[in-house]
């Protein structure tokens, strides 16, 4: 380009071609790079959308307007009361001796909003705490003490293995066995699912954060932690007979009865990791002797149906955190944040599109079904 003879330029059309070609190449490369970044050119890449598709397939159908997992639940409200002990670990305002109100949700695992409570191995508690310094903390915890697998890829495989076989309407046992064989860490989870007692209520179930988070205190010291909500309500396990005879909606009925008697409490126990503990693998437990700090209590005062409750339009993304709490290198945590957002977007679009009569309370809910 530098030494152009000015006289040669004006009329020669062929001089336009190098420029036009370069422009076309640049624009096409930019468009291609964009499409690649968006994942449009790599249908085999596991994205949050494709993960959510797999969950929907495993659910057997899409229940419009409902969460793609933990679909059946109830909104609850109450407060978290810090006791001051957590302040040495984290500068989060909720750990001060103050009451922080929350909008929460108690649920059972599974994609059906009509799942049977007495067959749901996993129960859950989600909280959104709004502290008086304007910050927010969202958490979503489960009754299992550790996750079944150590990677996002493996959880995707587990989800696929649990998808119903079109022929039988049930998961293919051969596929599930192949999954378990490929992921030896899953055996611990399977053993838990088989042998752990079934508490009689949400109120006497322990809920575990499972993933690792980082607490940062006022001095800037960082600790890797996990936490659990341990019930104050007396523990009682269901016998197999009681469980078989229980109503498919017994958890909600029990909750209503208990709340009529007074608020329900859990203690928040924070476990602090030692160097070398598995902080990036939620399928690995930490040794029993780790320091545990009781930092305050969760108090549930009331419950409302999820169709009309304040928890319906909340995405309990575990990475919505206040100052003083951070995510960790645990890859499951980042994946949860990504997949919950897709699940939330889909259900909110279904509600907006008027396709979610049951989820919004405009149609009578179905009976619980297996």
């Amino acid at each position, binding site marked *: 380009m530098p030494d152009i003879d*000015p006289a040669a*330029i004006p009329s020669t059309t062929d001089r336009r071609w190098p*420029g036009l070609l370069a422009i076309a190449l640049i*624009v096409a490369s930019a468009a291609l790079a*964009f499409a690649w970044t968006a994942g449009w050119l790599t249908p085999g*890449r596991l994205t949050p959308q494709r993960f959510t598709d797999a969950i929907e397939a495993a659910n057997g159908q899409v229940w419009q307007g409902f969460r793609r997992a933990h679909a059946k639940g109830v909104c609850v409200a109450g407060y978290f009361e810090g006791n001051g002990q957590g302040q040495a670990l984290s500068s989060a305002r909720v750990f001060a001796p103050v009451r922080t109100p929350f909008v929460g949700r108690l649920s059972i695992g599974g994609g059906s909003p009509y799942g049977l409570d007495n067959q749901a191995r996993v129960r859950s508690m989600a909280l959104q705490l709004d502290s008086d310094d304007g910050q927010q903390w969202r958490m979503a915890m489960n009754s299992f003490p550790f996750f079944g697998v150590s990677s*996002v890829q493996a959880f995707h495989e587990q989800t696929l293995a649990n998808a119903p076989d079109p022929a039988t309407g049930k998961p293919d046992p051969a596929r599930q066995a192949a999954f378990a064989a490929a992921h030896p860490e899953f055996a611990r989870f399977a053993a838990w699912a088989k042998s752990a007692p079934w508490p009689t209520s949400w109120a006497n179930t322990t809920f575990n954060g499972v993933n690792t988070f980082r607490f940062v205190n006022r001095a800037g010291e960082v600790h890797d932690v996990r936490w659990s909500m341990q019930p104050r309500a007396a523990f009682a396990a269901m016998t197999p007979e009681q469980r078989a005879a229980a109503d498919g909606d017994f958890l909600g009925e029990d909750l209503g009865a208990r709340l009529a008697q007074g608020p329900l409490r859990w203690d928040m126990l924070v476990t602090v990791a030692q160097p070398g503990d598995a902080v990036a693998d939620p399928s690995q437990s930490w040794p029993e002797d780790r320091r545990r700090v009781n930092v305050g209590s969760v108090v549930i005062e009331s419950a409302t149906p999820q169709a009309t409750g304040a928890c319906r339009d909340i995405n309990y993304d575990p990475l919505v955190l206040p100052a003083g709490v951070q995510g960790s290198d645990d890859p499951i945590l980042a994946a949860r944040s*990504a997949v919950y957002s897709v699940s939330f977007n889909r259900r909110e679009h279904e509600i907006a599109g008027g396709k979610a009569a049951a989820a919004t309370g405009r149609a009578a809910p179905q009976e619980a079904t297996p």
Partner: protein
Amino acid sequence: MNRPTPSPRPPRHFNLVARVLHWSMALAILAMLFVGVGMVASLSLRPVLVDLHRPLGIAILLLVIVRLINRLRHPPPPLPADLPRAHAFAARASHWLLYTLMFAMPLVGWSMLSAGGYPVTIFKGFALLPIAPHHATIYAVLRSAHTWLALLLFATVLMHLAAALFHAWVRRDGVFASMARGALALPPPAAADADLESVEDKPIAPAPTNQRQQ
């Protein structure tokens, strides 16, 4: 954003503020577009990228306010007089569209998070106040708008990029230089300064009136 009729001495270049804002915002907006589509398609990078996406998007909102004020106070250089009318119209319309989207994208992002009930965190411990009520339908509409407007913005930027390079490499009419650099104090020595832009700037062929020249 109408181009003013050339005053006795119309500027040949965008002023320094306009140029610095144009190129820094071009970089930031392209980054936002790639970060945006990349983070929603990633199972691992979302937390890091979304923490970058929100503050950078709000920074763009603040910068475009400064940019619009500067633009209204300092009229841009006129387009070359020999530019076909349709072409000139396309240039003006696309610049309007770009300004509209530079305002709309961050505002939609902010209000969409508000309607979704999310804190609009700018940095750890600091969140903007919500600018829309927490509501499923409002969220769904804004969330879709954020995607479609982003795609429209990307398409417009690509056309704008193609047009800018067309001016630089095909028409060689000084339009690119008007955004690429400022007026020099002295006219450049004709032969010594043989870089691409000065060549474009040289009156090639009989200079049409109003052509942007050095």
